[in-house]
Every structure is written in structure tokens, then in C-alpha cells.
């Protein structure tokens, strides 16, 4: 897990790229907890999202989970190949398994997300 990642409590990770663009994915913890992913719906490019708003859905073991935007902004790119290759989420969740790229409205919102240590502490305390 790269040190430059930030995390939402809802298990999405964020990596700052150049130009105020953020790459967003799903943490390996969440992917492992969901298991057997079967469907995924991604948002349309150009959609505006607010932090905490659902931007997509994923189904596993009969469970539909929402994907939540960790930061407000515009969806500028989606990993269109991902719904057809969901195994990528398990194999490379912080690389090829990225989900969307968001042009942040206010990059300081990143300060409200968890760093790696805080996220690992959060998931370590989750009941199993």
C-alpha cells in the first residue's frame, strides 16, 4: 500500500495526481471483505459529485454496496475496463484496479481523509 494514499472511512482510497486530479479506488480490505465481485456500475464522465455521495455500485455475494466519493468534484475519467475484469480489484487494488479520477473542487478536502496509519487502525478495529 503506497504511503501517499488517503482513505475514506467508507474504504475508498485517493491518490493525488497532477493538476488537482485524484485517482480513486477501493481498499484491499474492502475488496477482501466483499469477496466474489460480480457486477459494477461506474458513473458517467462529467458527472459532478459531492464528498460522501454515492457515485457507483458494486455487487458481491448478493450484496450491493455503494461507492462513495471521498471528495467533491467532477468525474473526469473512469476505468471502463474494470466492470469486465473485476478480478483486477483483488489483484492490484491500488494500481490497475483504480475506479475513477476526480477533478477536485477543493483539494483541501483531502485533509479530512485518513492517512494510511489511521486507516489501518480503523480497519484493525472493525469487527469480524
Amino acid at each position, binding site marked *: 500500500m503506497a504511503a501517499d494514499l488517503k482513505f475514506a472511512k467508507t474504504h475508498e482510497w485517493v491518490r493525488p495526481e497532477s493538476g488537482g486530479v485524484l485517482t480513486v479506488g477501493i481498499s484491499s480490505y474492502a475488496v477482501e471483505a466483499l*469477496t*466474489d465481485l460480480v457486477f459494477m*456500475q461506474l458513473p458517467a464522465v462529467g458527472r459532478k459529485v459531492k464528498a*460522501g455521495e454515492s457515485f457507483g*455500485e458494486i*455487487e458481491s*455475494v*448478493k450484496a450491493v*454496496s455503494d461507492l462513495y466519493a471521498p471528495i467533491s468534484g467532477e468525474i473526469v475519467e473512469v476505468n471502463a475496463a474494470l466492470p469486465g475484469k473485476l478480478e483486477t480489484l483483488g489483484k492490484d487494488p491500488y494500481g490497475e484496479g483504480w475506479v475513477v479520477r476526480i477533478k477536485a473542487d477543493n483539494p483541501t478536502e483531502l485533509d479530512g481523509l485518513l492517512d494510511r496509519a489511521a486507516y489501518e487502525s480503523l480497519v484493525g478495529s472493525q*469487527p469480524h
Partner: protein
Amino acid sequence: MNRSLAASPTDGLAVNTLTIWWDDAADGPTNMAADECLAAEAERRGSLLLRFYGWSETTVSLGGFQKIDDARQIASIRGVPLVRRPSGGGAIVHGSDLTYAAAVPKSHPWGASPQVFYDVLHGAMVEVLADHGIRAWPHPASDARPVHDESLFFCFDRRATGDLVMAGPVAGTFSKIMGSAQRRLAGVVLQHGSLLLRGNTAVGVSARHPAVADMMVGLSLPDQSGLLRAWGARVAHGLGAAVCEENAPFVRGCALEVEGLAARFREERWTARR
């Protein structure tokens, strides 16, 4: 959420309480809306909630990712109202089944991972059915058919780990009698489930599935409300919790919210969103 449903800190409700509501039969959109309200209420209370309800007419509920065109091509359910669930899984013909919705905060021991909630609720039903002489068991993980086989449109044609099955109706065969599916929101899990106690004759043969009644030999069917009440008690026992049965239907306590949310479930663009 209507405050009449709200538990104040002095109500004595706590994490180790299972609250149960018995609702009247309603149409699909009303039931789905009520279940979303139930999830919001569970998150606010921080405890496990359970709602039992019926259907005012035979209805097919679609899983969240199922395609509407697949439903429309099945002659045996043509003309039957459709509603799309917020939860996943396959389609269910409602009307003769026992339907429940359970909601639990993700911070609850049963809310953290999908399989745990399936297993504890289904396990409690295995025990209750056994008390009535009905032997059912969870479908084992090693023998699970893929849940994403889209050619299997109906929930009761699929087998996922933990689904309840029993022997029959033909010697040497097994049939699924109980399945559940979830919607996992940011802070709460909504679980839908259905026990096929009796077969539904309001749909064509290909949409009918063997029910408990079809596989019982020399036994009478248990009383439905008694069976569900015993199930609720077993679930609470597994949690070390007390059961709190509400006298008024859940829907009555949040009628305005349910009405507002039901409008979305009535919209064609929701039902036909995939």
C-alpha cells in the same frame, strides 16, 4: 424518520435489543421504501431491527443488478408487477413466501462482513425449522454454484454459500428454501430475505419453486407467525439480546417518509434502470 419511531436515550433501547415490527401486506414500492426507512432507523438507533411483512398482490422483486429485459422475456411472470430491490441477488416471486427485512449498523458485530449476517439469520432458522421436524441446512461453500450466473434469473434457482436447502421434492435432490441479499450502505446493512414455505400458484410453472410444503412428509406446516416469532427469539438469543416487539406497524410510524421513498420505487426509470 418520523420521531414517533425514534428511541430516545431514556427508552432503554440498546445495542443488545432486537426490535421487531409486524407489518400488513403492502405493494412492492411501499415495502421497499419501508425497508430503506428501516435501514435508516437501525443506523440511528445503533441496533438490530427486523420487519416482517406481506404483499398485497403477487409481485416479482428484481435484484439490484438484474436486467429488466430478462424479466420481461419470462412468460411465466408476464403481467405480474415488478419492483426493483435495493439489495442484490436474483428475482423472487412474492406472495406465498415469508418475507423479512433486517437492518444492522456496520459497527455491529453482525454488520461488518456480508456472510456473517446471512449465516446468523439463516442458522437461527435452521434451528426453528428443526423444532418443527423440518431438516434444512446451509448450502456449503465448497458446493456453491456461481452466484453470478445470469442465466439463473430466480433467486431460488441459485445456490450461494449459506442459502438454506432441504431434501426434495424428488429423492436425491435438494431445493433452496431460504435466501437473503443485502444492500450495504455507508453505515448500515439492509438484508432482505425470503422463506419459501408455500409454493406460489399465481405465476406460471417455470417461476414456481419447490417450497417447504412440497417437501414435508407426514408433517403439517407450522403456523407462520409462530414460526417467525420463534425465529426472532432465536436471532435475539444468538446476540444475547432482548426482543422488543412493537405493537404498531413500522410503516405507520414513518408513513410520510415511506410515501416519499415509494415514489422512486414506482418510477419506471428505477425499475428499468438496468
